[in-house]
């Protein structure tokens, strides 16, 4: 049987990720957004380490280390640099206002709780709460991607989705290939960060605003 302390700490950390996902939604400055994302990754690393400890699964510490080093340090630093280089730190362009976005976010969290707690009645308590929180993080990440125009904040949204998935994968007790999957996902994200940098979207489009990219479609050169 799981002791209350073990459960409470896991619950606190996973719940913390949902909370930070909400914080991501209302950031209106680029650098602030990246700092909050780094916090998101730190909490993920803590949560994964806790899972590694209580499941007695040392390989999960690798996943935690990847989360901490790559997602909490390297990628935010690289993105800070890109934001400075491209001079886009002024503000985050939103499609929908902050208020409606937050309301929609609450709706999504309620939805994922209602759905996941109902269908996972057979699974153990830890996996249940992890899956429910993870789906909330994934849906909030999707919400962030559709409510932001800027390419960098879309990448941040995508990475927060990825964090949610890692949370779900580590919560599912004894799931194989978690480390491999987290590595594969980090490669994906690394590629796109390098992509933004190398292709210098700014130089080509003068903006990283996705609406501007849309305007090029169908135009002849």
């Amino acid at each position, binding site marked *: 049987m799981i002791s209350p302390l073990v459960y409470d700490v896991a619950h606190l950390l996973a719940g913390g990720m949902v909370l930070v996902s909400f914080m991501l939604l209302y950031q209106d400055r680029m650098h602030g957004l990246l700092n909050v994302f780094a916090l998101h990754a730190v909490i993920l690393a803590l949560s994964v380490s806790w899972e590694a400890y209580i499941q007695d699964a040392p390989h999960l510490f690798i996943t935690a280390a990847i989360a901490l080093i790559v997602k909490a340090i390297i990628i935010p630093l690289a993105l800070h640099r890109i934001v400075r280089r491209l001079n886009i730190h002024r503000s985050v362009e939103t499609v929908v206002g902050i208020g409606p976005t937050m309301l929609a976010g609450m709706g999504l969290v309620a939805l994922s709780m209602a*759905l*996941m707690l*109902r*269908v*996972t*009645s*057979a*699974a153990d308590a830890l*996996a249940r709460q992890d*899956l429910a929180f*993870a*789906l909330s993080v*994934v849906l909030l990440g*999707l919400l962030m*991607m559709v409510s932001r125009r800027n*390419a960098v904040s*879309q990448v941040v949204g*995508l990475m927060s*989705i*990825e964090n949610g*998935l890692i949370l*779900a*994968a580590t919560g*599912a*007790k*004894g*799931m*194989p*290939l978690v480390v*491999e*999957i987290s590595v*594969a*996902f980090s*490669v*994906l994200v690394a*590629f*796109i960060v390098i*992509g933004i940098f190398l*292709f210098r*979207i700014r130089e*080509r*489009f003068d903006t990283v605003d*996705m609406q501007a*990219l*849309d305007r*090029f*479609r*169908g*135009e*002849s*050169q």
Partner: protein
Amino acid sequence: MTFSGFVSGFDALGAVLLIPLASIFILALLPGYRVTALLNVLASLLTLLAAISLLFVRPEVGSLLFVDDLNVVFIVLNTLVGFTTSLFSASYIAHELETGRLTPTYLRFYHAMYQAMMFGMNLALLANNIGLLWVAVELATLTTVMMVGIYRTHEALEAAWKYFILGSVGIALALFGTILVYVASQPVIGEGLDAMTWTILIEHAAQFDAALLNVAFVFLLLGYGTKVGLAPVHAWLPDAHAEGPTPISAVLSGLLLNVALYAVLRFKMLMTANEAALAPGPLMVTMGLTSLIFASFMLYRRRDIKRLFAYSSIEHMGIITFAFGMGGPLANFAGLLHMTMHSLTKSAIFFAVGNIAQAKGTQKIADIRGLTESHPVLGWGLLVGVVAIAGLPPLGIFMSEFLVVTSTFARQPLLAILLVLGLLVALGALLWRVTGIAFGTPVGRMEPVHGSHLPMFAHLVLVLGAGLYLPPPLVAWFQHVANLLG
């Protein structure tokens, strides 16, 4: 030495994966595009031979990789079109260098990525582990994203970005579905690798928690469905097809969409094996039919020739998903046949379109006229391809579409009417467009064709042959696979 004696000497399954994997590094390091283009063809040919040998020698089921009657169809088709496309690409890509659209460095990267893409797709098809399947699909996505953006124009970068964002969201959803399948299987099978091994999952699927499987399948269908290009989540597909190099458009339409569909089919089989779970058929039928009807109307408004055929791919993936969603031996048989015919025909069309775009210097439909007069071989080849893809007799697609329609009429007449409506609307659009392209007075630039016509005609001959006469062993094989799909 007999053929089977030869192949039993080495592991054919390993070869299908190792040849592309080794080629990535060789092609990335070798300078000179003539050599690398040739080596790319050679590697693709060897992979094809190894894949064909899997038909005769079936390796043992491993915990990570396996070959069964279902995936062997996909793997042979995949390596065959991979080989013919590499042939086309070798003759096509040199001209891109001459016109300055690519530099030698990018060309080296292109060939390495081509093999990386083949590796990703072959790995996805051979994976016996649903986690490995996911990683392989992700790899294939990443490599194609880079291929789509290789020209580095505004449009190409925008297309690559859109494809990357939508594709990533898709595979993220698919991963969540994969995790849920593990959560469902873990109480029954126990922790560890077995609980993600497909062959073990299918044996125990009946005991899984049905509610959890239902939610998992919705995520998997939406996730992998994004990569299939099904209607609500198809937005990346036309851009990616239009802006990348044409050989990549051929591979995207002919192969990558199939690989994603294969993943959906595997999970559909799991769902069918669990009686308490939601029937996956109606979901697939709805998505398929929506894609078909939506894409067939969208065909009328296309001004770019590659976008036109990209929408036609959405339409055909809709038909195939519809057929597999209907299920049953006949509809599954029709779906398999249609998938094969579509891969061959659509890649042939893209070979023609690539040559047209190079000869005319444009992809705008309005600027391409009178091809049968200015470039007779190319013009008539394209015409035959479009007649085939529109589903006119006597070509192969007519037969598979006919089977889909008749099997649907017998069971769900109302759905069959919608299906026929979509097919006719698409037929009208394609024939209307192709008459403008093929006939009339030629306009614009008229340079000679640089790319080879051979791969296009090889595909068209196969499609015509299948329309006239399907060899009994092939029919028996497909029937067997159709029964497996349930």
